């Protein structure tokens, strides 16, 4: 697919270069025979050659049977990738797949969409991270009529929360594909050996982390994301469970409320007091997950959609010892986030929108969503959750935790603004201050002022 095309392209370029060389050598021969017959002729050649080479560059597959799909590295993508030949056979289209890590994907979009590229047809994006920015910049095509065009595909089957985050100014700009909630990962064997019950509240979590860690030398009581920006989403559930939020009902920054300050101190304190020795403040999920799956931590709070990393024997040393539970309750109860983490959209500048929609329709069909969910990717379709087959492959305790979170969850895991990346750095500052044992209440007050200033200009 992808590779074949690149090879063809390379061959094409070689062909072009050969033509130019032949052209060049012919030119020298003529020069020998006729000496400087006319500079004009040579000039014409000199001008034409570079243009000839330029014309040999790039292939144009606009509005043809080739569809350029850009996806992020994810369990979901692996499933789709394996099924693409099936789609190519049924539709007669050819799919060129580009697969990138989260950060590289963002950068790629920033560069290409900014330049108004038509080289991307279908794009996998994060509705809560980039959705508003992309929609505002008109990068995403309006899919409002597409989603209503096929009753069998059934747009109404998609859960309301995810749908609202792929809708911008009453226009549908994306179709959700993956949903996630924060759950507690824990080591069943260590808890059992220490005679500790699965924590139901935040206080129990801290006490259990302390006790089990003390009984197992070299094993941290708790691990979670620590990077200022990456930690924000996982911290958000703690914030809500302590009764806070990033922005209050009137749209003002609310990072310095007693609830928010308590949440910052608690999350950071767990990592500072019971986290891994020399805890780094650079950890996103791959690093934190590695510590847990290497058997070096008792508790870990993370998105449920990543659970396969912990239970897959090829990736995890503790695959058969991992238990799952709903997020422990804080003073305001257990309020994990429940969000659509990824969606598919169509590049507004694409010349191949109809075919792009065909791909999205196929990739988000009931059958594909069920297949993805069975492979461990929680989907956005109600019918799949209602179907016993949809949860049949999940560990029983994880299924229960997801069901609980879906019911009690909050629909966002980061501030809902346009410049999300900048907002995350501001609201994440007190987290790292708390992790390193600093004055998190002071940092929360400072961050609140900065965040309010940010909100005033985020338009």
């Amino acid at each position, binding site marked *: 697919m992808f590779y074949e095309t690149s090879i063809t392209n390379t061959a094409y370029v070689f062909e072009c270069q050969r033509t130019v060389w032949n052209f060049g050598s012919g030119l020298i021969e003529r020069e020998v025979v006729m*000496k400087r017959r*006319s*500079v004009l002729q040579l000039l014409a050649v000199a001008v034409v050659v570079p243009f000839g080479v330029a014309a040999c560059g790039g292939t144009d597959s606009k509005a043809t049977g080739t569809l350029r799909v850009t996806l992020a590295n994810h369990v979901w993508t692996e499933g789709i990738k394996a099924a693409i030949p099936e789609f190519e056979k049924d539709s007669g289209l050819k799919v060129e797949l580009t697969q990138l890590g989260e950060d590289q994907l963002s950068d790629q979009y920033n560069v290409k969409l900014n330049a108004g590229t038509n080289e991307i047809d279908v794009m996998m994006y994060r509705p809560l991270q980039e959705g508003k*920015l992309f929609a505002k910049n008109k990068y995403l095509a309006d899919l409002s009529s597409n989603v209503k065009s096929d009753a069998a595909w059934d747009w109404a089957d998609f859960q309301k929360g995810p749908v609202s985050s792929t809708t911008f100014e009453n226009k549908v700009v994306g179709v959700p594909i993956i949903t996630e909630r924060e759950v507690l990962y824990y080591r069943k064997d260590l808890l059992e050996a220490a005679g500790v019950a699965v924590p139901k509240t935040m206080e129990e979590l801290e006490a259990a982390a302390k006790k089990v860690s003390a009984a197992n030398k070299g094993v941290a009581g708790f691990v979670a994301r620590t*990077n200022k920006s990456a930690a924000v989403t996982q911290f958000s559930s703690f914030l809500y469970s302590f009764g806070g939020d990033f922005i209050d009902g009137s749209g003002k920054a609310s990072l310095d409320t007693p609830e928010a300050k308590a949440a910052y101190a608690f999350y950071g304190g767990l990592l500072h007091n019971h986290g891994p020795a*020399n805890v780094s403040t650079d950890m996103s999920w791959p690093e934190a997950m590695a*510590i847990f799956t*290497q058997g070096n931590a008792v508790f870990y709070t993370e998105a449920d959609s990543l659970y396969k990393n912990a239970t897959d024997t090829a990736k995890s040393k503790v695959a058969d010892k991992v238990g799952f539970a709903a997020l422990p309750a804080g003073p305001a109860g257990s309020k994990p986030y429940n969000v659509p983490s990824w969606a598919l959209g169509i590049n507004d500048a694409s010349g191949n929108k109809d075919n792009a929609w065909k791909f999205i329709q196929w990739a988000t069909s009931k059958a594909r969503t069920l297949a993805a969910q069975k492979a461990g990717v929680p989907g956005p379709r109600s019918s799949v959750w209602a179907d016993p087959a949809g949860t049949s492959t999940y560990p029983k305790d994880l299924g229960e935790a997801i069901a609980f979170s879906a019911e009690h969850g909050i629909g966002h895991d980061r501030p809902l603004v346009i410049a999300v990346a900048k907002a995350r750095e501001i609201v994440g500052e007190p987290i790292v201050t708390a992790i390193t044992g600093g004055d998190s209440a002071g940092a929360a007050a400072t961050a609140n002022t900065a965040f309010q200033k940010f909100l005033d200009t985020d338009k």
Partner: protein
Amino acid sequence: MSVSVKTPVDTPKVTAARSFSDWANKHRKWLFAAPAMIFVGVLIIFPLGWTLYLSLTDSHGSVRASSDFIGLGNYTTVLSDFDRFWPAVGRTVYFTATALVVEMVLGMMIALLLWRPFRGEKWVRVAILLPLVATPVAVGMMWRLIFDPNMGFANQMLSWVGIPPQPWLSGQATALPTTIFMDIWQWTPMVVLILLAGLTSLPEETDEAARVDGANAWQRFFLVTLPLLKATVIVAVLLRSIDALKTFDILYATKGKGGGSFHEVETLNVYAYGLSFDYNEYGMSSAVLIIFFLIIIGFMWILTRRRKGQN
């Protein structure tokens, strides 16, 4: 024209073509170089001009969206930013100066060792040049694993000799020195290569004469070899300092966006990258880059003047 074509009457059209041909013949060195010159101009001058233009606007979100001309507004904001900009300048200077001094001294020492032929010389040279051919991002990833505070090899090694684990890349105070170490590891070989080329081209007579006059090894190095090698040393300093100023890959590969949670390794390049790719503040980012560009130009100007003075 060596081949003359006979025509009954010279029409004005033909005369015009011929006079252009004569003119073109006369100026052919410019004419032939023109496509390449235009190409370079478009690739260098246009992006620079565009960046300069962006730096005078409040462009954000998307560069294609409408933006307002705000004059030097971005520059005053940037130059009065003591939270991110000036610390980034400080880190850039610290990174470059430390890496440069260590690389030059170490590079000179290794080059002197390799100067005279010895057994197994080829193998040693290959081994020393290996870091140079590695991809910086891969190097960053490799050191990141080695320096991991919990699972990394560096702390494992320290534990064998009873030294407590160090935070390395994850410590606020140790992150920047650790990345400098990585830069030194990778780029000292380049300095060795340049200096070795300079050393081998030196005349042997002066050294012999000094030896006959009874100069010891230190005197011969500082009073004979080094002054003769000065031009080469300046070339090495020039190349390495420009490269070190612009370092991005290993910093980004080891600490990610923003140079870590506390911006521990955020140099000007990392800062400008964050402004445009994370914050989508293209105007501000362009202003930072233009200032950075001026700093590099200024630095180069000083160095080339010194080099010319030498010659």
